[in-house]
């Protein structure tokens, strides 16, 4: 079984909480987490609704392997309609809260409506209460976490909450759990704050015990752990350098989007790389990186725990930031660094701390600052707009100040909180926004990695690297090497990656396992845990079903094939240097073929045949 078999439904408008059984028919078709929560959202809300209105719902969902000994079995997803994109949002996070929800005996929590006054949910096994959160409203994630621990006098309490940026309506605010793990993208935190929900505090003591075939499960997970340990990426690269192992690699490929994606290589990449995080600083002889850290049940442990140089200008008089906290991931280092042209590792770490402390997505934030810097450069944004803050590319001071303003939702931070698309529209130059469906790009330039262009354009939540990580194949050669500069075979590759990722995101496992695991390694673990004949083929078909369900949600929300595109800059302005010199992204060569393979109409709608084939 492995599912808890129960959902907690929380009606915030009425202040009522009710348990209900999990729909097992759906679970057999959508497994859990991303897939199953998307199914619930699809069935329960009007996709065209106002994302920040009470008719939208917010679902926190675990997978069947969440809270088990499967390596990385600690993931959970926050699923809702995104205020940033208008599309379906599904943000995935690790840390410990997902496992705690499952240990308390619940597969999912569905939040409906909106509370007139701030509340938080306290969940202890079968006991669930909405409690007033006036005293927490206006506090950062870190302060909320400390205050809840103090109020409940329970050090074991696990907490997910939103920070001040979400309260201020920043459109890319996330839900932060365990101080520095984030369901970060697409503004899921903005929705949570709009519902008047400040935090979810969970204590689970029931455990996860109803494994279908325990002996087979322990053998399968043991086998899986061995594969992870023996693999170069998951056994060495990620534990040593974290995701930052990619910084120098991608830069050398000429696929490092730089200064709002004008360039494809960043001269300061080596200064903000995973390797640089290991180097003792000249000022205090300590490296930026203190240690690596694991999420619940993870045997990879790619997480970064870092300490800022106490004498650095960003924290010189702020002891609050002198301790250790979640350090730079590759995506954050790219968005806060290369994209803004800032090569000051300590300043990036500080901005990253603020993203965690007040709960906003460093990818969208960094990319929005980059767009603002370009607008400042060409005079569309002036000192009058920014209260005298000089938004120059490469300015660590500007980056740090912007992070402070967005965290507090003050001054120019309100403009930055709109995200790159709305910011560029507001200042009259929409073409400078590097977004798809309104969501900012992550750290791979689609001119140097062609397949990623298609993955970005067709991603169901706007530009995203985790919806179809063809970098695996095009750069790292996993499972097999393809040429990053060719479009040939990419539609098929993108579809395969998208379906596989949808499956992994629905299991409770972490996508990073797929550097080492194929679906054939995952299937036995799910099958032993859940029972009922889960083989690779069925799992991948389920991945495809989930992808199409999300697509259908978006179609009903008013998105069409016209939204499957990239900014002009990436389609028309060729890369100036590096291996991809002279190349733009050839999306047009890939998209029609992709629709065909997907079984969609030429304008990108899920066809009736496909709908029936996948039992949507």
């Amino acid at each position, binding site marked *: 079984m492995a599912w808890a078999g129960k959902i907690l439904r929380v009606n915030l408008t009425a202040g009522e909480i009710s348990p209900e059984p999990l729909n097992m028919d759906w679970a057999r078709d959508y497994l859990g987490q991303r897939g199953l929560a998307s199914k619930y959202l699809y069935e329960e809300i009007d996709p065209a609704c106002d994302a920040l209105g009470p008719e939208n719902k917010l679902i926190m969902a675990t997978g069947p392997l969440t809270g088990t000994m499967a390596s990385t079995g600690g993931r959970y997803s926050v699923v809702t309609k995104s205020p940033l994109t208008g599309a379906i949002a599904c943000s995935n996070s690790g840390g*410990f809260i997902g496992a705690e929800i499952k240990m308390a005996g619940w597969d999912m929590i569905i939040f409906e409506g909106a509370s007139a006054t701030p509340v938080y949910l306290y969940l202890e096994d079968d006991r669930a209460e909405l409690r007033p959160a006036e005293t927490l409203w206006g506090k950062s994630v870190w302060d909320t976490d400390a205050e809840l621990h103090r109020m409940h006098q329970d050090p074991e309490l696990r907490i997910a909450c939103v920070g001040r940026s979400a309260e201020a309506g920043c459109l890319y605010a996330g839900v932060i759990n365990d101080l520095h793990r984030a369901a970060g993208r697409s503004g899921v935190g903005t929705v949570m704050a709009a519902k008047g929900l400040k935090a979810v505090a969970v204590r689970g003591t029931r455990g996860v015990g109803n494994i279908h075939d325990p002996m087979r499960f322990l053998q399968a997970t043991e086998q899986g752990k061995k594969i992870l340990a023996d693999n170069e990426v998951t056994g060495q690269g990620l534990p040593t350098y974290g995701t930052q192992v990619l910084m120098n690699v991608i830069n050398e490929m000429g696929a490092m989007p730089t200064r709002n994606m004008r360039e494809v290589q960043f001269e300061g990449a080596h200064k903000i790389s995973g390797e640089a995080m290991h180097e003792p600083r000249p000022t205090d002889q300590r490296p930026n990186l203190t240690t*690596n850290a694991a999420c619940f049940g*993870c045997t990879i442990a790619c997480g970064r725990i870092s300490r800022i140089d106490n004498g650095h200008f960003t924290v010189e008089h702020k002891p609050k930031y002198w301790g250790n906290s979640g350090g730079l991931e590759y995506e954050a280092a790219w968005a806060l660094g290369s994209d803004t042209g800032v090569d000051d590792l300590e300043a990036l770490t500080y901005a990253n701390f603020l993203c965690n402390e007040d709960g906003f997505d460093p990818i969208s934030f960094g990319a929005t600052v980059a767009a603002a810097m370009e607008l400042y450069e060409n005079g569309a944004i002036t000192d009058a707009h920014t209260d005298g803050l000089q938004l120059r590319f490469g300015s660590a001071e500007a980056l740090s100040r912007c992070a402070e303003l967005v965290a507090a939702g003050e001054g120019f931070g309100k403009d930055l909180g709109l995200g790159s698309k709305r910011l560029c529209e507001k200042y009259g130059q929409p073409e400078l926004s590097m977004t798809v469906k309104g969501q900012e790009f992550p750290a791979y330039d689609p001119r140097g990695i062609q397949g990623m262009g298609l993955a970005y354009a067709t991603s169901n939540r706007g530009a995203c690297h985790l919806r179809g990580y063809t970098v695996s194949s095009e750069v790292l050669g996993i499972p097999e090497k393809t040429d990053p500069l060719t479009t040939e075979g990419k539609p098929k590759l993108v579809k395969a990656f998208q379906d596989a990722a949808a499956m992994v995101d629905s299991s409770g496992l972490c996508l990073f396992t797929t550097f080492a695991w194929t679906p054939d390694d995952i299937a036995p673990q799910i099958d032993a845990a859940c029972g009922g004949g889960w083989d690779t083929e069925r799992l991948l078909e389920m991945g495809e079903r989930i992808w199409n369900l999300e697509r259908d949600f978006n179609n009903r929300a008013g998105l069409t094939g016209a939204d499957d595109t990239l900014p002009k800059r990436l389609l028309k302005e060729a890369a100036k240097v590096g291996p991809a010199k002279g190349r733009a992204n050839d999306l047009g060569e890939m998209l029609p073929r992709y629709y065909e393979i997907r079984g969609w109409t030429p304008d990108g709608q899920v066809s009736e045949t496909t709908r029936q084939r996948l039992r949507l």
Partner: protein
Amino acid sequence: MQHVLKLEPALCTGCLQCEMACSYENTGAFNPARSRVKVFTFHEEGSFAPYTCTQCDEAWCMHSCPVEAITVDLDTGAKVVDEDVCVGCKVCTIACPFGTVNYEEASGKVAKCDLCGGDPWCAKACPTGAITWVPADTAGLERMRAWAYQAPRPQPTHTKAPREKSVETFHPGNAGGQ
């Protein structure tokens, strides 16, 4: 030879695989809340530490138990709680200076590490070597070796003439890794 659980906090990543393994072996569910080994996270310091019973020879818990529910497993040296005898009075939890015996609401008894009868699940589950199962008498050897490795080494010379040994070379003060 008797074995012990050797804990190396520096190697711990805080993944809780040990807590899941322990709780599964003892309760049949993956449930860190019922684990007898605990991992503590010190966020500000950026460190993690696994922690469990040291199986004292003269065990405080055993001596304090009024109903003699805690006995020695002669094979492993573990101090084992007999659930049928334990009355849940919690005196042992007060007696243990390390806090590694705890009352469990779910069972109404106390629970502590019993070394799984000589094949501890936590050590098997630990992915980083932060918890290992080693011969008791030599548990410190690896650490000794690590310090010894940092001691000054003689520099290679090109003469066969006997060198005068300096006494300072073996002064404990410069054998450390400051």
